[in-house]
């Protein structure tokens, strides 16, 4: 959903040695912890009826968080494994058709409602975790694919010419020059995909795929705000945390010297 915005994000100004501001990095986790603390205090203050008590307890929450994280990790790993090689292949092939298809799909992908996609696939394939994984990966592949292509194509042609002029083979140019320089853009795509997956993963619960969506949708359909708020805040916290991890990855995996 956020791919073009991520792509527009201006490169962080490189000041001096570009040392990250550590204090600034800790604001996010602190806010997340504070939010969770408020949630805990709030639910403790509520009188829970039996349905609420059955959903809002440590055991249920723990297992759903675990499922959610597992689902997200599997999907993100699959997404990267599919999208990066595919993006490399498309940009190496210099095929104009492939480019147009991918970028066009990338724009269209934004408009595809995730809930529609996941329910459709469940109807066509079957309900369950497997289908949820397929739907989530299909949804998250686009930003990574797109950023991989954009990243590789964004490498200064002077550098690839210099590398080719030195006698590096096409493949060597890819691995020593193009891919390393595309890493920041690819990582931005991965971060987008990660957040997208955490955010869409609750929908998996609609088709029996488990995760925090179970509690969330229970709360919504039974009109029990205590339940939906609890799980809503948990999902939000997880998403903000995932985004923060993505930020860390972008800072530490970016090639040095840039």
């Amino acid at each position, binding site marked *: 959903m956020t791919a073009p915005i991520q792509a527009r994000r201006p490169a962080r100004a490189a000041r001096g040695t570009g040392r990250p501001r550590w204090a600034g990095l800790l604001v996010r986790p602190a806010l997340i912890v504070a939010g969770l603390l408020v949630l805990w205090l709030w639910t403790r203050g509520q009188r829970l009826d039996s349905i609420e008590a059955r959903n809002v307890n440590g055991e249920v929450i723990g297992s759903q968080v675990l499922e959610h994280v597992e689902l997200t990790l599997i999907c993100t790993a699959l997404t990267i494994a599919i999208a990066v090689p595919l993006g490399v292949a498309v940009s190496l092939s210099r095929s104009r058709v492939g480019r147009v298809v991918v970028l066009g799909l990338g724009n269209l992908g934004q408009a595809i409602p995730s809930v529609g996609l996941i329910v459709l696939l469940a109807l066509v394939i079957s309900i369950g975790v497997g289908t949820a994984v397929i739907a989530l990966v299909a949804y998250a592949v686009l930003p990574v694919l797109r950023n991989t292509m954009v990243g590789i194509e964004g490498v200064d042609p002077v550098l690839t*010419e210099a590398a080719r*002029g*030195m006698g*590096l083979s096409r493949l060597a140019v890819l691995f020593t*020059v193009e891919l390393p320089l595309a890493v920041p853009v690819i990582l931005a795509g991965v971060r987008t995909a990660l957040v997208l997956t955490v955010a869409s993963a609750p929908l998996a619960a609609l088709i029996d795929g488990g995760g925090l969506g179970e509690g969330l949708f229970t709360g919504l359909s039974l009109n029990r705000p205590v339940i939906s708020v609890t799980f809503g805040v948990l999902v939000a916290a997880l998403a903000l945390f995932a985004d923060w991890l993505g930020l860390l990855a972008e800072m530490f995996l970016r*090639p040095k*010297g*840039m």
Partner: protein
Amino acid sequence: MPEPTGRPGETIELTDVTKRYPGQAEPAVEAVSMVIPAGEVVVLVGPSGCGKTTTMKMINRLIEPTSGTITIGGTDVLTLDPDQHRRDIGYVIQQIGLFPHKRIEDNIGLMPKVLGWSRSRIRARVAELLELVGLPADYARRYPRELSGGQQQRVGVARALAADPSVMLMDEPFGATDPITRDHLQNEFLRLQREVRKTIVFVTHDFDEALKMGDRIAVLRPRSVIAQYDTPEAILAAPADDYVASFIGAGGQLKKLALLRLRDVELAPAPRAEGLPRIAVEATARDALDLMLGEGSDVVLVTDDFGDDATVIGSLDLRMVMGAAAGEAGNP
């Protein structure tokens, strides 16, 4: 001699080399034939768009010729694997093209690494090349963006020399630097070339740079047609036609003086007089003239070296300088 000078230059020969792009009526390069002697700097000079860069890039096959043959040291380069072929040719471009994510040592050491050199050998080579191009050894650990433009271009030259090629191609290598830095880099490069004796094809649109850098100059017309191919002195003395003369422009005589080293001039014995301006024998007749005009003296003392304690070996007066411009330069 240590490694950088290990491999001497090889002769490059272009025969009827033509480049035709599909869908264009005129060829970009038309039937160029020239011999670039081993160990010399040959400058291709001409207006932008005349095909000089295309001609150069056909030598390392970044652009494939449509027809004609190119040989280096007698081997037809079109029969070689392009990547293998390029590894034997140093390539320096105006935009430098240092890899921003690699330290200087990794930029310079990239080709040796690809060629499978041992780590210690690469490290020694990097240190040697940094010294050769006049950069401090600790720059090896820096990233390109931490260097000035001039320093980056020295690294670019070092990187091109890393695998000890016999031939170097240089595409306006100093074009993006300010005049002072450029002058400096040019001088350093000439010093370096005296050591390494590679065969160098040097592309520029700046005729003064061509005069300074070239052992020979090829003045090119559009489609890379050779208007004149000769030594700088010969071109200055006898431009082949108006086209070549237009490059020399005004001040052709002064340009000749700039090519004439004082050591090649017959000096008069040193007079006894005190307080005359002094100039080193390494300087040019143009420098001597500058000094005379600047100091308001029509005689200068010529010394064997730079510095105040150098020995005076002769003298030079205004009339001798003017005679040199008229006679000497035309027939070196």
